[in-house]
C-alpha cells in the first residue's frame, strides 16, 4: 500500500487513480468488467460524503471494496467490542456516538477503537507484524474490557411517531428520521 496517498481522498484524483490501479493489479478482469466500485464516481452514493471520507481509513475502504469476505474475516480476529465498532462504522454508517450509546461506552473509546483497528486490520491483511502492533492489540483488549458491564442486553424503545406517514415538524423525534449528522451538518451515509 502506498503511504503517500492523501488521507482525505474525497475529491482527490490521485486517490481514485490509486484505487483503480490497485483494483486492476488485484484482479484485472474484475476491474475491467467494472464489477469493482473503484472510485466515488463509480459508487454514486459516495458523492457528497466528505465526512465519510474524512473519518474512514482509505486503506480499510480499499480492502472492503476489493475483498469484502476477507475484510470480515480479518475483523473477526479483533476483540468483540472493536469488531462491533468497525462493522457498525464501516458497513452501517453509524457515528461513534451512536455506536457508543448501544455498546455502553463513550464515543472517545469508540474512536480510539476505530483508530487502533485500522492498524491491526492493515497488519493482518498484509500478513506483517509492524513495530508497535503488540501495544495496539493490548490496548484493543483493554478497550474491550473497559466498557460498562451494565447487563448483556440493552432495551431501546423508538418513538411511536417514527412509524407514521405524516410527521409534524414540531415533533421532537423528527431528526430521528434522518441519518446522523456530523458537526458540520453533513449527513453520514453508510457504505
Amino acid at each position, binding site marked *: 500500500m502506498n503511504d503517500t496517498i492523501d488521507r482525505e481522498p474525497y475529491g482527490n484524483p490521485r486517490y481514485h487513480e490509486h484505487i483503480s490501479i490497485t483494483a486492476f493489479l488485484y484482479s484485472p478482469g474484475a476491474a475491467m468488467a467494472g464489477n469493482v466500485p473503484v472510485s466515488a464516481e463509480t459508487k454514486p452514493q459516495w458523492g457528497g460524503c466528505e465526512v465519510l471520507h474524512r473519518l474512514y481509513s482509505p486503506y480499510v475502504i480499499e480492502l472492503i471494496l476489493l475483498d469484502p469476505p476477507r475484510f470480515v474475516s480479518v475483523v473477526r480476529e479483533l476483540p468483540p467490542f472493536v469488531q462491533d465498532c468497525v462493522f457498525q462504522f464501516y458497513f452501517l454508517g453509524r457515528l461513534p456516538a451512536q455506536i457508543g450509546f448501544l455498546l455502553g461506552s463513550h464515543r472517545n473509546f469508540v474512536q480510539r477503537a476505530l483508530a487502533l483497528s485500522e492498524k491491526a486490520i492493515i497488519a493482518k491483511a498484509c500478513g506483517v507484524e509492524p513495530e508497535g502492533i503488540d501495544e495496539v492489540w493490548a490496548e484493543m483488549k483493554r478497550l474491550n474490557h473497559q466498557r460498562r458491564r451494565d447487563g448483556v442486553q*440493552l432495551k431501546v424503545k423508538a418513538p411511536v411517531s417514527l412509524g407514521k406517514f405524516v410527521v409534524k415538524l414540531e415533533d421532537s423525534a423528527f431528526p430521528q428520521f434522518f441519518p446522523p449528522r456530523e458537526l458540520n451538518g453533513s449527513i453520514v451515509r453508510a457504505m
Partner: protein
Amino acid sequence: MLIEQGEVENLGEKPWAGIELTSDTRIEEAVLHIGTWARQFLKGEPFQLLFPIQTRDLGGVTMLSPYLMARTLDLKKLKKIGSIRGVQGLECDERGRVFEIDNTFVQQVRERAEKAQQSWSEGISVGSFVRCLVGSGRMLCGNVEWRDETHARVRVELLSRDIVVTCPIRTLLNLGDVPEEKRTYFYVPGLL
C-alpha cells in the same frame, strides 16, 4: 413522508411547488435542512412538504418523483428555499414565476408514497429478519421476537451484547429474502 407545520387545514386546495435538488445523494440532508428552514422562517405558518420515498435502505433513499413538493399560504415565500444546501430551487418559468402543481395530482403521489412506505414492512412476522430504518437502532439488522398490530420487538445480536429494539413495524424493512448464512446485524446487500 409528509412533513407538516401549523394549521394545514387552512391550505385547502392550494397548489404546490416543485423543489429541485442538486444531487440524488443529498436528498435526506436537503429535506432535513428544509424542515429546519421552515420552522425558522415560516414561524408556525401552515406548511407541507411531500417527501415521496419509494425505497429506503443502507444506501439512502430513492424517490417516487424527481422533485420534492411543498406548499404554504404564499408560494413566493418558498423561493428563499434555494439558499439551502442541497436545494437547487423551486421550479419556475423563464420569468421566474413558480410553476404551480395541482393539489389533486400531489394527493395521488402522496397515496403512492404511503403505499410504498407500507410495503417495506409487509410480511413481517415473528422470526423475520429485518432492518431498523430509523431511530437509535438505525440500520441494524435482527430478528423479530414479538409483534402486535403496530409494534415489533427486534433482537439485534451484536458481538459484545444484545440490543432489543421496540419500534413501530412501519420503521422496519423486511429482509426475508436474505439467505440464512448472510444474516448478520451488519448485513450489506450486494457486498457480503
